[in-house]
């Protein structure tokens, strides 16, 4: 009897020991689908009287609409239909009933409230909820004016994007490009700026002379571009706030292909002397110039790495147009493109790890990326004609332009802006009121 009890006890003990080790299961895969997101309308709280004109602004609908637009265009979020929402905005913002939102298949929820503070400043507050885990992820408020509601919407979009993807956002930014009109043989080109979602196009030049390749300074204060003012192709500097243009590349020869250094203090550009194009960097304030390449080949399209220590550029010193890198002082020149075809327009990613480029091979144009040592070349999109990729401020999206072929009457030849994700997905056209080319992206506007 005792023997049997002992055996049972021993067995039980054995059981306990053998079960102490928990089973571990490796979850190495998931899905990369856009995240189902519910963006509720915001609401005006009681501090805004029912007859207050602010209510007419309809910001309670417009702000979430813009946020939804941004998130949807990023390709990473799947906004759900508002018609299916069960809870009212004011209730959801206070304490969402998470089952209501899980029921419509949302995983996250954005709610918001618009109010007036005691100083009559407009206050926009938003909350981001994880409805599956039933908790609040983020809660922020912005003070602004009614007119500035778009910036607020973009900033809210950036916060939501960051909190859920782990990447910094890119919605509070602008795009500068060349607006084109007229026949192909005599195009009229003007500098144009707009919000990254296409809103609010403003023209910076009149179109009396050709303008090309505009670029923002990282501090968002200046634009540098090339203009044929007085039939002399030169690099100019435009002070955005003051609206003043300054001749920057005042050389006895063409200056072109300008870009800013990461600290916004220098403009790097090509200068063509006696037919030969080399790369120079100029301090904007002192106008002191440093020569960076000295070679009888064409050297152009320079672009700094985000830490300013290196430069990538385009050269045909090997006999064909290829991509090179060099140190910021012009030493250690190294070729990095070796595939078939010719390569141009290299641009260093803000993340520092990739260089985007244009490739021309067998009469087709490609936009692609490669690592900074030239390895891992990936072509993202192909077309009859497209070129000049430019990175979004978070290094995830590339904007570029495409042109359709034209007939001998000059019909066709339409240029439009396009964007594509680093992954090669989410290729989409960006609407502009006119034809457009040479787009580049600004830094985040709220960055100081």
């Amino acid at each position, binding site marked *: 009897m005792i023997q049997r009890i002992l055996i049972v006890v021993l067995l039980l003990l054995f059981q306990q020991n053998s079960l102490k080790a928990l089973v571990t299961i490796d979850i190495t895969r998931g899905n990369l689908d856009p995240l189902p997101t519910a963006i509720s309308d915001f609401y005006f709280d009681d501090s805004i009287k029912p007859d207050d004109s602010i209510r007419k602004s309809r910001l309670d609908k417009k702000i979430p609409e813009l946020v939804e637009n941004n998130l949807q265009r990023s390709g990473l979020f799947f906004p759900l239909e508002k018609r299916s929402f069960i809870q009212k905005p004011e209730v959801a913002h206070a304490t969402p009933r998470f089952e209501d939102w899980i029921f419509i298949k949302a995983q996250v929820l954005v709610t918001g409230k618009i109010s007036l503070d005691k100083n009559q400043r407009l206050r926009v507050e938003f909350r981001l909820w994880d409805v599956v885990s039933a908790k609040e992820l983020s809660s922020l408020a912005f003070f602004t004016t009614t007119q500035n509601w778009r910036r607020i919407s973009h900033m809210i979009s950036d916060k939501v994007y960051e909190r859920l993807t782990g990447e910094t956002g890119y919605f509070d930014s602008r795009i500068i490009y060349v607006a084109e009109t007229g*026949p*192909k*043989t*005599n*195009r009229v080109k003007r500098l144009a700026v707009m919000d990254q979602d296409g809103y609010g196009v403003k023209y910076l030049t009149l179109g009396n002379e*050709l303008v*090309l*390749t505009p670029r923002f300074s990282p501090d968002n204060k200046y634009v540098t571009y090339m203009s044929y003012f007085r*039939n*002399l*192709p030169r690099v100019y500097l435009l002070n955005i706030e003051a609206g003043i243009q300054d001749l920057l590349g005042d050389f006895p020869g*063409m200056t*072109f*292909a300008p870009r800013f250094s990461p600290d916004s203090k220098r403009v790097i550009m*090509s200068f*063509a002397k*006696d*037919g*030969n*194009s080399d790369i120079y960097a100029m301090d904007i304030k002192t106008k002191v110039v440093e020569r960076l390449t000295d070679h*009888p*080949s*064409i050297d*152009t*399209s320079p672009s700094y790495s985000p830490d300013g220590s290196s430069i990538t550029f*385009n050269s*045909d010193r090997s*006999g*064909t*147009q290829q991509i090179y890198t060099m140190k910021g002082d012009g030493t250690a020149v190294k070729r990095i493109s070796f595939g078939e075809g*010719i390569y*141009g*327009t290299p641009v260093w990613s803000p993340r520092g790890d990739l260089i985007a480029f*244009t490739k*021309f091979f067998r*009469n087709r144009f490609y936009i692609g990326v490669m690592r900074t040592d030239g390895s891992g070349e990936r072509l993202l999109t192909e077309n*009859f*004609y497209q*070129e*000049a990729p430019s990175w979004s401020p978070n290094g995830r999206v590339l904007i570029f332009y495409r*042109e359709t*072929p*034209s*007939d*001998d*009457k*000059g019909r*066709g*030849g339409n240029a439009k802006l396009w964007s594509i994700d680093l992954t090669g997905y989410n290729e989409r056209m960006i609407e502009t009121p006119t034809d457009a080319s*040479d787009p580049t992206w600004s830094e985040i506007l709220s960055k100081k």
Partner: protein
Amino acid sequence: MKLAKISFIYVAVLLSLFLGACTTAQKATAPAPAPASAPAPVAEGDAYTGTDTVKFLADGIPDRVFFSTNKFNLTTAAVNSLNKQAVFLKANANLNVTIEGHADERGTREYNLALGEKRANIVKDYLISNGIASNRIKVVSYGKERPANPASSTLAWSQNRRSVTVRPN
């Protein structure tokens, strides 16, 4: 004896064709503005040889020369046209000109600006080497911004790869 002569000529012709095909070598050794000696003319490649789009500075003096894809070397036809232009300019000593260099649209914008600049400059250098004073000749590149033929065709592209000698208004 005759056979030897023929075969010698044959080999000579072969060799000259060989040399003519080595155009890339020329790029590295860009011709300096030397007096009298012109850069060696090259094979035509796909340079335009027609007369469409060609205007005239005066009777029988074409205002432009054409280039092969991605090249800025003067073809034999180009040299012939420029010789005529040089004569014309010598005869009209008060005339100053601007050489406009252009490229076709099958390339990236900034590189094409540089290529147009090379094409304009090689014409300027040739005219200088033929006795025209350098202060009479300005140079400007339009890259691919001002095509002569707006079509997207091989013919149009060849007509757009050009350097045009322009008289002021």
